[in-house]
């Protein structure tokens, strides 16, 4: 099967790759662009470990084909920090120990950032439902939710 040429923007950088039409966006990010921050936990859109944003919308990159990224703006966990300055969510996740093994963390961070951009003042219930698409098997979500809520409060104070 012949490969297709894709031009897209990832974390602000214009990139190109050739991909088989069957390859997912996640495959392309990981295997062609060496952006291995997004993880494949299920391949069926159930675990959220591969979460990225596409033109600002939160998606599971395992459910989108690599060819569909053409002309889009993709943001991944690698683009969350601003140079050498961590995003407040990243700092709070470390401070709160909102991760144990850390494999779900990239997806959770991308999803949580997307939540706070849309809803700067979520209730605990809203945060829990927004993050319901991101499975974490280690933490029981307690410290994740606390980290997200505290980040939201801090960002509101700062703005």
């Amino acid at each position, binding site marked *: 099967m012949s490969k297709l040429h894709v031009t897209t923007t990832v974390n602000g950088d214009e990139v190109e790759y050739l991909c*088989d039409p*069957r*390859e997912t966006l996640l*495959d392309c990010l*990981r*295997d062609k662009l060496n*952006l*291995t*921050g*997004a*993880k*494949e*936990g*299920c*391949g*069926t859109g*159930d*675990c959220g*470990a591969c979460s990225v944003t596409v033109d600002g919308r939160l998606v599971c990159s395992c459910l989108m084909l690599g060819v569909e990224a053409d002309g889009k703006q993709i943001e*991944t*966990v*690698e683009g*969350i*920090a601003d140079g050498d300055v*961590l995003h407040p969510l*990243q700092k709070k*996740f*470390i*401070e*709160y*120990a909102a*991760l*144990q*093994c*850390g*494999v*779900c*963390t*990239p997806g959770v*961070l991308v999803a949580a950032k997307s939540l706070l951009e849309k809803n700067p003042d979520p209730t605990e*219930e809203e*945060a*829990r*439902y927004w*993050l*319901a*698409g*991101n*499975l*974490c*098997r*280690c*933490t*029981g*979500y*307690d*410290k*994740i*939710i*606390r980290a997200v809520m505290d980040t939201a409060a801090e960002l509101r104070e700062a703005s």
Partner: protein
Amino acid sequence: MALDDRKSIFSFVGTRPDRPDGLDKVTGRAKFGADMSAPGMLHGAILRSPHAHARIVKIDASKAEALKDVKAVVTRADFADVPFKPGLEGEFYNVLENVMAGEKALYDGHAVAAVAATSALAARDALKLIEVEYEILPHVTDVDKAMAPDAPVIRKGAADYSVPAGMHPNVVRYHESGHGDVEAGFAEADLIIEDSFTTEATHQGYIEPHACLASLGMDGKGELWCTTQGHWIAQKTCAALLGIETSQLRVTASEIGGGFGGKTTVFIEPVALALSRKANRPVKLVMNRSEVFRATGPTASASMDIKIGMKKDGTITAAEGIFRLQGGAFPGAPGDMTAMCAFAPYDLTNVRQVGYDVMANRPKQAAYRAPGAPMGAFAVESVLDELCNQLGLDPVDVRLKNAAAEGSKASYGPTYERIGLVETLEAAKAHPHYSAPLKPGQGRGISCGFWFNHGGETSVSLALSEDGSAQVMVGTPDIGGSRASMALMAAEVLGIPYENIRVTVADTASLGYNDVSHGSRVTYASGLATIKAARHAVEKLCERAAVKWGIPVEAVKWENGCAVPSGPNAGDFDPLPLADITADMGATGGPISGHFEATPEGAGVSFGTHIVDAEVDPETGKTSITRYTVIQDAGKAIHPTYVEGQYQGGAAQGIGWALNEEYIYGDDGRLQNSIFLDYRIPVASDLPMIDTVIVEVPNPGHPFGVRGVGETGIVPPLAAIANAVSNAAGVRMKQLPMSPPRILAALKEK
């Protein structure tokens, strides 16, 4: 020099610094199993049996091999042991049978062949061209049916010496223990309750599927990168299965995306090595989620009978339990562990427990957090709750009345040293949760839980640098923040800042043997070894100070990161900081490092008590957990935040097991729910905050008092939730999971 062996006042231990690997894990930089690549790398894929039980008549891979993108195909013939000519024994044989089927496919998902190709897609396409001829055999997946006289035999001769004569060949191990006279004890009881319980198999559900990158040459030298809880066991097992020397295979543990016991063995690693050897190129092999569910170890399913007698004042007069555990198509179901843990929280005069290890046509069970203990606790603590209800007694008071303490003879044999069960129960009784009012439709449950904890073979090295910083090399993969705990313990001994210590998980070529990160052993055993390695380095630091000062080493002691004279007679010298000694260590005797290796035996058993409130919707049968409190003895919490995290994680997994998770098999013996959509683990919106109380009753077997905390947290939830749900619904729930259909059925029968 003088060093106290035990310590109870701390500078670093008990604080909550950021974990050393935090930055890597919030930026996507951390390298997990599937994140590594190599030049010239091929991609592997595994063909799996669609049948629960079938003889493999013929495998024809010629069409796959003819593809130009395919560089190797392997079957069982490519391993150290082939059918009809066994060379491996015991668990090595079982693991080989599991990673690549021999004469028979033993469960839906059992590996039968594998390919390596130039891309993952090409490898997947090639699998479709491999033709396997099967002769389908009768199968069994249920534990009680697998023990019945007419059950199909999974493998003849798999039973060991412990199994009494006359049992079905699928019963492969038997355990019986206890003390006293249970019949006499039952005769003294005012109330006896006897009942039966079942639990279903659940999966550890780590979010990272198994993944590895293997390279093995025709010279028998290899490199393996894999996600594992223990790379030395991976090294030893892979070497045996491939027929190469252990030391010639260097294994590096990647960051590990969860394990919970499920990554204490190998599945794809030997297959990737065999493909690499045949293709003479590196091979990357990554499971998809469905393969994880179908072919890696879930926990055992269980069928249990419990009988407990109690006096009106709450004294347990006798307890008896029979525990039948199904562990897939291989020996290993932890019927013995279930039996030994079930009554362990209680000081009983008369107790007897029997455990069966039963084979069925399911994937080989693997350890899952306190393997075997949660099921038994569910059955026993449910009966205790029912006794309390019928006798009108407070469930915490009854447990306190019967609680084991220092000097109690454990139900499984030994006499307890200092333990903290009573303290957890007293904390439960005093906790605001226990006396908070319940709303209509809600019920409250409590349960105790026990786990042995483990020491295991352990080796740690510590090296000081000329600038006064330290590197610690441990051999236990960091599954939940253990680098932070190790750095805190090393800082405590050396007296240098936490931030000046770098903890590395060393590969198998860089350190001596280390057992797996399991058994709640890492903070205990690697921690103990880190402390002793640091003390070893401190001895040398004191020797160097003695040389510098020209006094005997006995006159030097170590305080707050400095060598100081041990008393007025030792001489008058200013404290000599660690960095001043390491700065010129090359001139005073050479590099300074510390080392320790042992198999520590004093892990210290662990107890917890959980309080749960549950609300049952009588219309839908859905259960909501409205409040949850974990109380557990940590001995000494090195990094309390990560201790809380272990408690919360164990409770959350227990909630899933109790309410929703189960392996569902069809009549055809195939697993029907092999993706996360159908095997639903708890999500954020399913759970409340999980409160924690860390009780600290120091473990006499660890220099700082540590008891492992990883596993006990999953022991009480099944029972505590079942008790809460039963009290809310007004009907005793005896089968897990308590899914909505089961609850509706129970409400209907009420």
